[in-house]
């Protein structure tokens, strides 16, 4: 019998959608060999989050651990807590977000386990697929019998589980003392009311071709007309046109919107890694030989500074 524990991700008030996607990944495992799926929520004052977690379809129980030192998402505190909670489980999963990637390997080391990153498919209780080399190869991996399975689920590969569940919520005392050597200072978010890049069904992205932060405004304008999230290439982030949390790609966000529109992005493999799972990719580039056209479903060769305003006018 499988017993799967999933580390829930949240910001203190709202559950991150990566959590419900990890539940789908776990459900694919129990689909092969049966079993239960539990969620663990770590934080301080997280009753609302625990209630959201309990409503995810397929969840058996939610373990809620409240403690002041768990309020900030520090791996130094969340890692040992996850490791302590893992006893009795056959699998421990986390979303493949920066939080999951920070915490899960930490916990795995404490359990003496070699974890799997970015599980994109489940072929059996212990058989998985994961991408390597920026998604240019997909490898089958099998975790030998008897060993705890720990890994992150690649969010872009899994649909979010539904929200008709009614799991029990149990209070679990914190098992580990606070780490004195690490102190949380804060987080600076770019904020805004636009749809979240990682969950938006439409994403508009701009690249180096935009030329400046001022010029990037036309990308925001089009996105707002479409109700879309906004992304960017690394070159646009490095040049300071947009903040880092907008980067799409191997080292930025891996996204799977229904529609992705790329303006003035050449299509480097590291960028394409981030959009391979998009439903439809539209590329606008003035260079007909740009590599992005090799994977675009709809391509338009031309100048983005004329095309974006035209698009906005014709779509709104």
């Amino acid at each position, binding site marked *: 019998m499988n017993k799967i524990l999933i580390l829930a991700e949240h910001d203190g008030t709202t559950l991150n959608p990566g959590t419900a996607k990890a539940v789908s990944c776990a459900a694919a495992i129990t689909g092969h060999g049966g079993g239960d799926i539990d969620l663990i929520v770590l934080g301080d004052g997280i009753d609302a989050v625990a209630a959201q977690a309990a409503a995810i379809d397929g969840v058996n129980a939610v373990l809620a651990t409240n403690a002041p030192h768990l309020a900030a998402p520090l791996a130094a505190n969340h*890692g*040992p807590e996850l490791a302590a909670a893992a006893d009795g489980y056959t699998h421990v999963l986390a979303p493949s977000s920066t939080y999951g990637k920070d915490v899960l390997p930490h916990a795995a080391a404490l359990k003496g386990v070699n974890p799997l990153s970015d599980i994109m498919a489940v072929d059996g209780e212990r058989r998985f697929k994961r991408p390597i080399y920026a998604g240019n190869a997909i490898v089958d*991996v099998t975790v030998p019998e008897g060993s705890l399975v720990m890994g992150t689920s690649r969010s872009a590969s899994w649909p979010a589980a539904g929200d008709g569940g009614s799991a029990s919520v149990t209070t679990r005392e914190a098992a580990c003392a606070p780490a004195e050597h690490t102190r949380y200072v804060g987080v600076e978010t770019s904020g805004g009311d636009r749809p979240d890049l990682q969950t938006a069904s439409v994403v508009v992205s701009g690249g180096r071709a935009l030329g400046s932060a001022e010029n990037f405004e036309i990308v925001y304008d089009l996105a707002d007309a479409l109700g879309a999230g906004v992304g960017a290439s690394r070159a646009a982030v490095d040049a300071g046109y947009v903040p880092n949390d907008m980067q799409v790609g191997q080292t930025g966000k891996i996204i799977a919107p229904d529609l992705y529109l790329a303006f003035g992005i050449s299509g480097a493999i590291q960028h394409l890694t981030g959009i391979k799972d998009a439903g439809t990719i539209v590329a606008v580039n003035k260079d007909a030989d740009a590599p992005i056209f090799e*994977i675009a479903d709809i391509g*338009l060769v031309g100048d983005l500074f004329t095309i974006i305003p035209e698009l906005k006018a014709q*779509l709104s």
Partner: protein
Amino acid sequence: MKILVGIKRAVDYNVRIRVRSDGSGVETDGVKMSINPFDEIALEEALRIREAGKADEVIVVSIGGNEVQQQLRTGLAMGADRAIQVDTADTLQPLTVAKVFVALAEREGAGLVFLGKQAIDDDSNQVGQMTAALWGRPQATFASKVVIDGDSATVTREVDAGLETIEIDLPAVITSDLRLNEPRFVKLPDIMKAKRKPLDVIALDELGGHAGVAPEAGHHAPPAPRGGGIIVEDTAALVAELKNRGLV
């Protein structure tokens, strides 16, 4: 303070990867190999910390066969003081690599273990976190800014929500993100000088050998190709196509 920098030999990031036709792995014969780009950034930051007078020695470490000496020499040419090759011909798991870094950090009395956030071959993004956990020391992953201040450091981290700041006591593990710095170019005289810098070889077994159960890698496949796309003539045709497909 001593800084250990992990540098992994990996397929150069510009190479177009090919999966072997028998599915046994990725073609690496005759392919250009380089220092993993994140590790070059980690090394650059370590050198800057030393140049600012906040560290005395930068030691580059690579785990692998004799071929990794090539990347260690490049690291020495960039400015590292000495190099350690942890010798093994075997496939490595992250737990083994993390244990090696802990063993070396203790042996050297290192104040900082600086690694890349991920190796661009296995794309694991695990070793830094696992090293910190086993060592019982702070972990500051995905760093885009590092300020060393005596016995502690302030690190800005690139997280999904934006930029997070944490304060850590040293010794600690830091992993580099891409925007931390731009690595320097190696000059020819430095390559000559690097040949005379010390490079020690230690057997993997001497540092504890392999750790943990290894997941078995099986068949490798190229990713599913995307269906053939079309090119449209103008904005009006693009809009028509999007409407036609029910996307807007």
